[in-house]
């Protein structure tokens, strides 16, 4: 017998592709869902963090005695309470970011923490911790960081990838270079060459839930941490690393997570809470204020980008050169490297070179943000392609179709691409009514494409069948966008039972096998595969139990639509099909509880391409840009739950539009963030956006049993250039600096008007 191997992308599924009401939805619409800040333990203390007022300073001394003597204070910790960490340690940056040791590297950097009976007491005591600083010159911009006489942030940091190898430390953390073909010959072949520069500002992921946790250390030292994160196994190992504890000493229970977008792939509070709880012998709750979230967590890197493209008059891109500098905040990051891997990845360019630098500056340590680095390289590539199309008199869509990568084309990294759905996304937009709809006065239309790799990594799942034939599916992937619904649908498809009879849950670190962070658009792909594997192992077990019950050979039993069916040649008397529920009900008599696991390292994450079309209306008097229509087509491989695939696309668009038009960190000359709140750091609100038409394209990924590609990230890649191209279409102005705020747009319109008038 064979278990029916699901045909990748085959849409005859019974449950996959349906719009199940999410299993965790009821709790979320009734206010019962427990996010990290919603937990309170008996006897709990409240923690507060002492943060640096300086962007760059040496810590001369910390005196906690006055704070320790204050009412209600139970514990005060500083960097000295943690094991020292060597700069060569893989997680050095994370460790010294969570609590500073000798130096502070940005305004808001944690230097001490306090636990007290009430939050007010903790905050008062935190204000009473006396820290003496020796202020150092701060470097706040890429140019300052790379100046010859720039103060060096990290005396141990030698530029990785430098040729010849770096001998002296600098603020350049790494250099990444890719090339292919013959750049000079390529540009010589070009009929049109264009070179442009771009600049962007740091932006925040902007999750609505601030970081929060509760840590409770028992007398035996075992510590339980309830927290909001994209990966609780990572919280465990990172906390253990910082404290010098074994993993088994820590249990991390995932609370519901109120948004992450990459910003909760790293940790900030948990080791502090665990150390405070360990000292005080009481549970400690820590919740960041919104100001702390902005100042001390997450921003995505900003960049300066220079690109040069050469095209033949027929529209073929024959050469491209890029120079990228990403500012990753206070510690080394991967912005530049990821930028280098994405800047030319969407197009077949025979001759190219990329050089990418990652630099450090005295601003908060950057964190991943949805398709890290790619929105900025797309801003450069996709707006310059638009310019090429205009110059050559070729339709912007045709230019992209002509150059789009397809299966077998070499990636920037050299390997031939597997099956991808880029051309299909372009065609989906071209055939959409939006593409040919008329535009009104002051309106313009912009087209842009985007790409993201997606990743696989490790996942674990457990399937337990209950006595009544229902099932519990436990995974280790925090659910940030509806993944539990997808797990239930895939398990239902495999087991052949109704998804309403399946309870998908996210298990704590002691309840399920190791699972990597929910990042890289991997949950439905990789954890989904673990669920499928667990279910297939369960089906093998169920067939065996049915064989026992039918007194038949297991090889003569098939699993069909939730039933064990006898297919042998023998007497079929007494061998009627047995439902999963009947087999589950007799589990005690056939061998005991029915449980199966799946755990794997998921190879073969399929890249996701996406193409966006944006209409804007620009007010020529004020420079205000309104998004009037938006359509986004994205290759999902197979949409397990179409509503949440659409949701990922729509959410990515909204974030990208915010990045394009409004969002930016504003620092004063000392490196203090001037807009650490949602009033002055303006994310899009409902009245800023139209409906976002999400078109799901399905080109199955052969490495997933249902053809899934990750969908979480790619949607944020094209909005910035789509908006920029639309603004150009409406006004004739090319804006290459973010954000494209009313002031900047108005300046561009005014300057263009002056030029037109011979000014």
């Amino acid at each position, binding site marked *: 017998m064979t278990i029916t191997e699901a045909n990748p992308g085959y849409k005859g599924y019974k449950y996959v592709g349906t719009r199940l009401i999410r299993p965790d939805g009821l709790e979320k619409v009734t206010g019962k869902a427990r996010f990290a800040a919603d937990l309170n333990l008996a006897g709990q203390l409240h923690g507060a963090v002492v943060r640096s007022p300086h962007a760059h300073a040496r810590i001369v001394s910390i005196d906690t005695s006055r704070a320790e003597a204050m009412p209600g204070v139970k514990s005060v910790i500083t960097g000295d309470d943690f094991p020292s960490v060597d700069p060569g340690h893989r997680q050095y940056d994370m460790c010294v970011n969570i609590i500073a040791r000798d130096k502070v590297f940005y305004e808001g950097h944690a230097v001490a923490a306090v636990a007290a009976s009430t939050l007010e007491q903790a905050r008062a005591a935190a204000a009473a911790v006396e820290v003496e600083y020796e202020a150092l010159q701060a470097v706040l911009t890429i140019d300052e960081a790379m100046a010859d006489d720039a103060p060096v942030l990290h005396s141990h940091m030698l530029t990785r990838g430098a040729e010849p190898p770096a001998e002296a430390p600098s603020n350049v953390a790494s250099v990444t*270079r890719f090339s292919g073909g013959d750049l000079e010959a390529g540009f010589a072949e070009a009929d049109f060459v264009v070179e442009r520069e771009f600049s962007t500002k740091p932006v925040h992921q902007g999750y609505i839930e601030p970081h929060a946790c509760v840590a409770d250390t028992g007398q035996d030292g075992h510590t339980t941490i309830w927290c909001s994160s994209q990966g609780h196994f990572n919280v465990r190992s990172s906390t253990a690393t910082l404290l010098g504890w074994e993993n088994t000493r820590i249990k991390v229970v995932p609370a519901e997570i109120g948004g992450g977008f990459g910003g909760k792939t790293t940790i900030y509070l948990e080791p502090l809470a665990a150390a405070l709880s360990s000292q005080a012998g009481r549970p400690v709750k820590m919740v960041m204020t919104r100001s702390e979230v902005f100042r001390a967590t997450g921003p995505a890197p900003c960049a300066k980008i220079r690109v040069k493209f050469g095209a033949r008059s027929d529209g073929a891109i024959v050469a491209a050169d890029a120079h990228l500098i990403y500012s990753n905040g206070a510690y080394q990051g991967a912005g530049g490297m990821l930028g280098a891997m994405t800047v030319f990845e969407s197009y077949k360019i025979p001759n190219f070179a990329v050089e990418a630098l990652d630099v450090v500056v005295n601003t908060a340590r950057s964190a991943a943000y949805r398709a890290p680095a790619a929105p900025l390289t797309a801003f450069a590539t996709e707006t310059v392609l638009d310019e090429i199309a205009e110059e050559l008199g070729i339709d912007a869509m045709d230019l992209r179709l002509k150059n789009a990568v397809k299966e077998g084309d070499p990636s920037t990294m050299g*390997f031939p691409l597997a099956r991808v759905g880029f051309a299909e996304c372009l065609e989906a937009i071209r055939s959409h009514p939006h593409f040919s709809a008329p535009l009104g006065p002051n309106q313009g239309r912009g087209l842009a494409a985007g790409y993201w790799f997606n990743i*696989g990594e490790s996942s674990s799942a457990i399937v337990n069948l209950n006595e009544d034939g229902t099932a519990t599916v436990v995974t280790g992937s925090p659910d940030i966008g509806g993944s539990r619904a997808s797990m239930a649908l895939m398990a239902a498809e495999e087991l052949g039972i109704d998804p309403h009879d399946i309870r998908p849950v996210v298990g704590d670190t002691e309840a399920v096998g190791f699972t990597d962070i929910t990042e890289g658009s991997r949950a439905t792909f990789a954890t989904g595969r673990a669920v499928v594997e667990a279910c297939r192992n369960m089906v093998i077990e169920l067939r065996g139990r049915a064989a026992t019950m039918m007194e038949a050979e297991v090889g003569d039993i098939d699993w069909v639509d939730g039933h064990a069916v006898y297919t042998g040649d023998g007497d079929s008397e007494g061998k009627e099909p047995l439902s999963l529920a009947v087999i589950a009900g007799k589990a005690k008599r056939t061998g005991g509880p029915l449980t199966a696991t799946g755990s794997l390292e998921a190879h073969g994450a399929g890249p996701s391409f996406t193409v966006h079309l944006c209409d804007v209306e620009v007010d020529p008097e004020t420079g205000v840009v309104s998004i009037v229509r938006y359509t986004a087509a994205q290759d999902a491989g197979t949409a397990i739950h179409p509503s949440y695939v659409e949701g990922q696309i729509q959410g990515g668009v909204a974030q990208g539009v915010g990045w394009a038009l409004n969002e930016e960190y504003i620092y004063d000359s000392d490196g203090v963030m001037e807009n650490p709140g949602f009033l002055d750091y303006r994310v899009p609100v409902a009245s800023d956006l139209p409906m976002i038409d999400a078109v799901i394209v399905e080109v199955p990924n*052969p490495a997933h049993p249902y053809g899934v590609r990750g969908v979480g*990230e790619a949607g944020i890649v094209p909005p910035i250039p789509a908006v920029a191209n639309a603004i150009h279409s409406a006004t004739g102005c090319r804006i290459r600096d973010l954000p494209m705020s009313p002031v900047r747009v108005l300046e561009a319109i005014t300057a263009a008007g002056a030029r037109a008038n011979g000014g």
Partner: protein
Amino acid sequence: MAVRVHLSSNLRGPTGGVAEIEGSGANVGALIGDLERQYPGLGDALRSGVSVVIDGLLIAHPQYYRLADGAQVFFVPQSAGG
């Protein structure tokens, strides 16, 4: 197993810029050992932060991934995500 190795352009320092080389090994880890013998320094470059692509399959942690004779092995930088 004798395989054809393709290095992404950022990994070609130790080969003096050569993109395609020959190597052998039962798995990727053994292959890297062989490449280190041929091109001192290449092993270090390939052991961390590097993935491979074989037959279109991206493998993030390939040390023990078995190689078939004649395989095309592409070494590429490891990607990440948010």
